[in-house]
């Protein structure tokens, strides 16, 4: 317990670190500023902005803004990226409630009851409850990360290559089970990602693999390049053929009275609690993370409600639960990344990319060797959540005005911003073209109903998996049974197999589809 406070204290110390800033136009005067607080604020604001704008998802934004963080110190960069991630969860709810366009996949279900509330003139309380729920969930999740961080790290240090490989298999299977749509297609996407990760020189022998003597491919496909192509450019192209002018039935009346009534608070308190618990659990599991959490918690609320028919007509629980759940999940998904070094979803995969760019190899040793990085990031999450609740509610008017920016102006801006961003990663024009090609690939994948997120996950885990597989087999002298004879590894693989069997069973398949079809009914 003492450790926990000590660690959190260290984290807050890092966040509040003051440095003296003396710009030339102050003629020698110095201003005390905290870079990390500033990064946290910028991240949270940019995240909200992105969450509000429909058409660019969280993954695309984090990919787009990766180059921006290159010049920053590692702690500041990660704090900012984390801020973008949970900021987007907040922003997404705003548009769901006011415009009925979910800015993010995570707030699709919020739109059902949130928009119904807005139509009844109760947009203010809906927004407030969403913010309060998110803040509460964020606080709980922050503490949870702090509590679970140290023991999980200890566990991870006992892991050998065989355990790591099995853990990654389990993680990928989770990603498949929790993903939307066909299991077969999701597995295929993961394997496609694994193959893509093998382009470039081999880690151990240095042999050039599948690079066709093209010097630009010798180092492998850039992770940010593929992410930007598959999530950024592909989204833009897809939105273009859906018709740039989206149907936006904006709630026109002025938002009056943000404060929820006493009854609202009493109704939503248990829903927030349940959403937080469910979201925290689902967030730790690799795979859907925040998306599945919001869907699942909405379904749960509907199941246990005394009068389920209220849902869809402005039930406040239908806003409170999914919003708390997605925020909790967004934050707890940092746990596997920080303790085990395994990204549980596509955004975390990008965080791995960011960390490697800054020369940090994610894994259990990070928490021991660079505690200020990890705990600084954890502390910043709590502060970020506080900032969001203070900033966002008064700023709702501005965010709504942003929605009036037509897509015909937005998409060329995103294209240019992405292009400059990719170029600046390596100063390589080829990367820009490659991202464009992956944009077309992503467009094709969307058209054939393949999910791009497992592809990205496969691509990040590819090198790690291959390395551990090779090492495990080398240690066991080519004996494949090592994965089953080592107890921890066997347990992990057994869970993976069990999960895979479960999803194929017809009963659970319908259950799984039910969770996702909620928004369409």
């Amino acid at each position, binding site marked *: 317990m003492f450790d926990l406070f000590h660690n959190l204290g260290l984290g807050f110390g890092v966040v509040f670190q003051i440095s003296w800033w003396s710009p030339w136009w102050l003629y020698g005067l110095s201003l005390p500023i905290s870079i990390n607080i500033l990064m946290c604020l910028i991240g949270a604001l940019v995240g909200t902005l992105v969450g509000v704008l429909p058409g660019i998802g969280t993954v695309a934004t984090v990919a787009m803004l990766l180059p921006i963080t290159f010049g920053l110190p590692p702690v500041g960069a990660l704090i900012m990226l984390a801020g973008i991630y949970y900021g987007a969860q907040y922003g997404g709810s705003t548009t769901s409630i006011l415009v009925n366009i979910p800015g993010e996949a995570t707030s699709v279900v919020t739109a059902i009851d949130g928009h119904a509330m807005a139509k009844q003139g109760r947009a203010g309380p809906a927004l407030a409850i969403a913010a309060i729920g998110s803040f509460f969930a964020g606080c709980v999740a922050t503490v949870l990360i702090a509590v679970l961080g140290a023991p999980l790290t200890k566990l991870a240090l006992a892991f050998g290559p065989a355990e790591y490989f099995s853990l990654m298999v389990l993680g990928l299977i989770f990603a498949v089970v929790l993903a939307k749509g066909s299991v077969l297609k999701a597995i*295929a996407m993961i394997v496609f990602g694994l*193959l893509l990760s093998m382009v470039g020189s081999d880690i151990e022998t240095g*042999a050039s693999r599948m690079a066709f003597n093209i010097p630009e491919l010798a180092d492998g496909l850039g992770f940010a390049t593929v992410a930007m192509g598959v999530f950024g450019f592909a989204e833009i192209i897809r939105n273009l053929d859906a018709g740039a002018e989206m149907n936006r039935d904006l709630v026109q009346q002025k938002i009056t009275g943000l404060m929820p009534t006493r009854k609202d608070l009493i109704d939503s308190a248990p829903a927030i609690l349940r959403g937080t618990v469910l979201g925290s659990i689902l967030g730790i599991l690799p795979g859907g993370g925040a998306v599945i959490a919001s869907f699942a918690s909405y379904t749960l609320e509907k199941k246990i409600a005394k009068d389920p028919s209220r849902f869809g007509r402005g039930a406040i629980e239908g806003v409170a639960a999914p919003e708390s759940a997605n925020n909790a999940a967004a934050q707890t998904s940092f746990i596997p990344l920080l303790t085990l070094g395994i990204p549980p979803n596509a955004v975390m995969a990008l965080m791995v990319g960011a960390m490697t760019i800054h020369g940090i190899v994610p894994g259990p040793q990070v928490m021991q060797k660079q505690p200020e990085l990890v705990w600084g990031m954890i502390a910043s999450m709590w502060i970020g959540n506080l900032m969001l609740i203070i900033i966002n509610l008064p700023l709702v008017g501005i965010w709504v005005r942003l929605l009036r920016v037509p897509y*015909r102006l937005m998409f*060329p801006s995103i*294209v240019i911003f992405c292009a400059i961003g990719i170029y600046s990663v390596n100063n390589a024009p080829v990367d820009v*073209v490659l991202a464009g090609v992956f944009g077309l690939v992503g467009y094709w994948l969307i*058209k*054939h109903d393949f999910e791009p997120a497992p592809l990205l996950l496969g691509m990040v885990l590819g090198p790690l998996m291959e390395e551990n*597989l090779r090492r495990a087999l080398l240690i066991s002298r080519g004996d494949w049974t090592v994965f089953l004879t080592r107890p921890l590894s066997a347990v992990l693989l057994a869970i993976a197999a069990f999960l895979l069997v479960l999803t194929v069973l017809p009963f659970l398949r319908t259950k799984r589809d039910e969770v996702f079809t909620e928004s369409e009914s």
Partner: protein
Amino acid sequence: MADTMGHSAAATTRNTSVVIAFCLLAVAPQIFEFIWSIGTIFGWGVGRGPATVVIGHATALVAGAPGALLGALSGDTKKTSSDVLLALIYSYPLFAVAILTIFMTIRSAQDYVGGIVLMALALFALWASSDLQGMRGFSFGAGTAPRMFGGLLVALGAGIALTGLLTDGPAMAHYAWRGPLFVMISIVFFALAIRPLGVVVTAFASFLISAMGTHETRWVEAIIVGACLTLGCALLFPYVLGLPMPMFPRFLVQ
């Protein structure tokens, strides 16, 4: 009933185009290398000339691969050339799939085509990693993992294609051409122009090119926003973020 009749009629007309598409896919790497090789006439890039490419692939497809197959059967372990391997590993299986497709009733074109294309990608990866070293004793060679996952993806692609044959599902989605085309032109232009022309010119021009991607663009508005965005990016990236990149056209600076 009338509905299902109409569906099957549509499916048969679709089939021929799918078969043709698969045949094209089966020789796509060869065609791509041919187009690439045209550049060598003008001295761009390195590689074989167009004539050698055509002759090499044609002989590999028509004669080389069957010969190698026969040779392998009779226990002859002569090293086969990469053209022949491409024909053997990539083109022939896809031709076989294309021929099989003629006799199939496709119930979900989306899944069937998706699965086959993934299979093609995996076969291509298998060919690309065919020159790499495999297992040495119990230690992995450079080629082991790509071959393992390539094989797995072939199986998965086939599985997805099979679900497209066995279960009803959506037909091929509609592809738009305008958005992808102009966005791609804009991206390629950006890549070509950023070094010689600098951020200011390139970003503005790319903005206008990609704005052509929708017919809703109003030009006055687009030019104003494009100019503002260009200015913003020109300040943000090199100055605020300190990422070095050329600002103005090279010939103006010198």
